[in-house]
C-alpha cells in the first residue's frame, strides 16, 4: 500500500475515523455534558479540563463540538444523497432520451449550476422553514446540476458501447438497459464526485447553520457554535475560532480522501 506512506492521507483517515466515532458514540470522546452549564466556569480559556474553553453559559465547548458532529454531518451527507439521486435521475433521463428534450433539460441544468448553491438553499429554507432537513434538501438541489452533467456525459459515452448495442439487438427494453448496463458502468465517476461534494456540503451546511437556519438554539451544530462564539470574538476569540478550525480540518481530510478516490495521487 503506497498510500499508507503518504502522511497527508494517513492523517486524513485518522481524522475521519475520529469523526465517525464522534458521530455514533460521542460520549466516548466528550469530557463533559454538552448542555450542562456551570455558572462559576463561564468564559474559561482552553485548558486540560476544558480543551476548547467554556462559553457564556459555562458549557464545555469541546464536548459541544463532539456532540454536534452527528447533526452537522447528517445534513451534509443527506444533501449529497439528495444531489446524487436527483442529479443522476436527470442525467440518466436526459442522456438516454437525447435530442431536443436533452438539449432543453441541459440548458436548465446549466442554470442550476450557475445559480450559487447557497442562494438556492436559501430559497428552499425560506419556503420550507428552518431545520436540518430543509438544509439538506437545499444544499443537495444546489449540487444536483453538476451530478446531472457528469451522469449525462457517462450515459452518452456508454450508450454507444458494444454491449449496449448487443443488448438492444437482443430485444432488451430501454429501462432494463438503463438499470442493468448503463447505471452500473456510469456509477464510478459519480461516486468519486459525491465524495468531493461531501466536503463542499459540510461547508455549505455549516455556513447555513452559522447564519441561523439550522436546528433551534441549544442544538450544538458546528456552524451555530461558531455563530454563538462570534458575539464574544473581541474578548474570547477561541470560542468561535476553535469550532471553525474543526470544520476546516474535517473538510481538508474529506477532500484529501475524495481526491484519492477520484484517482489523483
Amino acid at each position, binding site marked *: 500500500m503506497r498510500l499508507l506512506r503518504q502522511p497527508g492521507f494517513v492523517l486524513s483517515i485518522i481524522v475521519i475515523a475520529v469523526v465517525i466515532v464522534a458521530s455514533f458514540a460521542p460520549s466516548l470522546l466528550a469530557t463533559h455534558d454538552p448542555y450542562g452549564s456551570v455558572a462559576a466556569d463561564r468564559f474559561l480559556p482552553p485548558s486540560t479540563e476544558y480543551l476548547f474553553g467554556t462559553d457564556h453559559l459555562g458549557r464545555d465547548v469541546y464536548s459541544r463540538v463532539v456532540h454536534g458532529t452527528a447533526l452537522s454531518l447528517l445534513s451534509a451527507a443527506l444533501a449529497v444523497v439528495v444531489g446524487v439521486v436527483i442529479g443522476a435521475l436527470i442525467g440518466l433521463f436526459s442522456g438516454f432520451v437525447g435530442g431536443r428534450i436533452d438539449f432543453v433539460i441541459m*440548458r*436548465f441544468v*446549466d*442554470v*442550476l*449550476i*450557475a*445559480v*450559487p*448553491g*447557497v*442562494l*438556492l438553499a*436559501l*430559497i*428552499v*429554507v*425560506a*419556503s*420550507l*422553514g428552518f431545520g436540518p432537513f430543509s438544509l439538506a434538501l437545499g444544499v443537495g*438541489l444546489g449540487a444536483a446540476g*453538476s451530478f446531472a*452533467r*457528469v451522469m449525462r456525459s457517462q450515459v452518452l459515452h456508454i450508450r454507444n458501447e458494444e454491449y449496449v448495442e448487443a443488448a438492444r439487438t437482443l430485444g432488451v427494453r430501454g429501462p432494463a438497459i438503463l438499470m442493468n448496463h448503463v447505471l452500473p458502468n456510469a456509477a464510478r465517476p459519480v461516486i468519486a464526485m459525491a465524495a468531493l461534494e461531501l*466536503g463542499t456540503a459540510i*461547508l455549505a451546511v*455549516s*455556513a447555513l447553520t*452559522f*447564519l*441561523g*437556519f439550522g436546528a433551534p438554539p441549544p442544538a450544538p451544530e458546528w*456552524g451555530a457554535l*461558531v*455563530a454563538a462564539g*462570534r458575539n464574544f*470574538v*473581541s474578548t474570547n*476569540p477561541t470560542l*468561535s*475560532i476553535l469550532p*471553525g*478550525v474543526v*470544520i*476546516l480540518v474535517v*473538510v*481538508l481530510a474529506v*477532500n*484529501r480522501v475524495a481526491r484519492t478516490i477520484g484517482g489523483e495521487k
Partner: protein
Amino acid sequence: MSKLKPWVGYLLPKLGQFAFVILATYTLVFVLIHFLPGDPLVAALASKGGGDTVIDPAELEALRAQYGLDGNLWEQYFGHLVALVQGDLGTSIATGVPVIDMVARAFPHSLEIASLALLFGVVSAVIITFLAFAAPWPWLRQLLLQIPPFGIAMPAFLSGLLLISIFAFSLGWLPSAGVRAPGSAILPAITLALPVGAIFFQVFSAAVLEAMNSPYVFTAVAKGVTPRAIFLKHLLRNALLPSITILGLLIGYLAGGTAVVETVFSRDGIGRLTVSAVLARDINVIQGVVLLVGATYAAVNLIVDIAYGFIDPRTRLGTAKKTPAPVAEAGAAT
C-alpha cells in the same frame, strides 16, 4: 457589411443565451417557491406577527393581491414575468418597500467587496502559480501548491473571524464592521477572495501546465530564455485568456459568499439583505436577489464572450469553435 457578418452570426446566439439564462433562473425560482409545500405568504405573516397569527381569510386574499401572490400558477408566472420585463420585482412582504429599491440600495456595497475580492483572488492566484513555476526547490513548490486546496476547505466565517481578531482587535489596523469607515472593505474582500482565488488557481494553473507543453515554450527554453521571461511573455498571456471564461462562475461564488461575509463583518449588502429576508420568510426579496445574481452572471458571460470574439478571432469566425469550452467545463466541474 461583409466585415460585420461574422459578428452578427457570433453575437445573436450569445444574446439569446443571455435572455434564456434570466428566463430560466426566473422559472427555476418560481418552480421551487410554488412546488415546495407551504404557503409563502402565511409563513411570512406568521414570522412577522411572531408565532401563531390568526389571519382573516378575506384579509389574506387582499394581501395576496397586494404582493402579487393571487391567481392560478400560470397567471402568477406570466404576470410576474411581464412585471419583471418592466423592471418591477414586486414588494417586500416584511417591509412593504419595493424589492428593486432594497436591492439597489444594497448592491453597491456588495459590488465594492466583490470586485476587490475578484482582483485579490486573481492576482494572488497568478502570483502563486508564478512562484510555483519558478521555485528552485521542489519542497517550496509543493508548499505553494498546498495553499489553494486550503483556500477551498476554509469556511468563510472562520477566515473572516480570524482576520477580525488579528487585524481589527489585536493590531487595530482595520475596522471590524460596517461600510462607512475607510478601509472597511479590505478584510471582507480578503475573506471573499480566498475561495474565489483558489477556484481561479485550479483553472489557471491547469492552463499554464498545458501551455508549458507547447512548442513555443520548448523553443524558448532551448534558446535559453529565463523562466521569468517565459512565464511573463508566453505563459501568462496564453493561460489567462482561456481562464477568463470562468469569470461568470466566479460571480456566482462571490454572490453566494456575500451572505456569510457580510454577516460576519456586519456590512450592509446583498448577502445580508438575503439573510434577513430568509429570516423573515420574505420570498419576494429572495426571488429578486436570485434574479439579480442570475442577470449579473448572464451579463458577465455575455461580456466575456464579446471580449473573446475581439481577442481571439478564431472564436468569431468559427474556425475553432471549441477553443474556450474545455476550460469552462473544467471550471464548472469543480
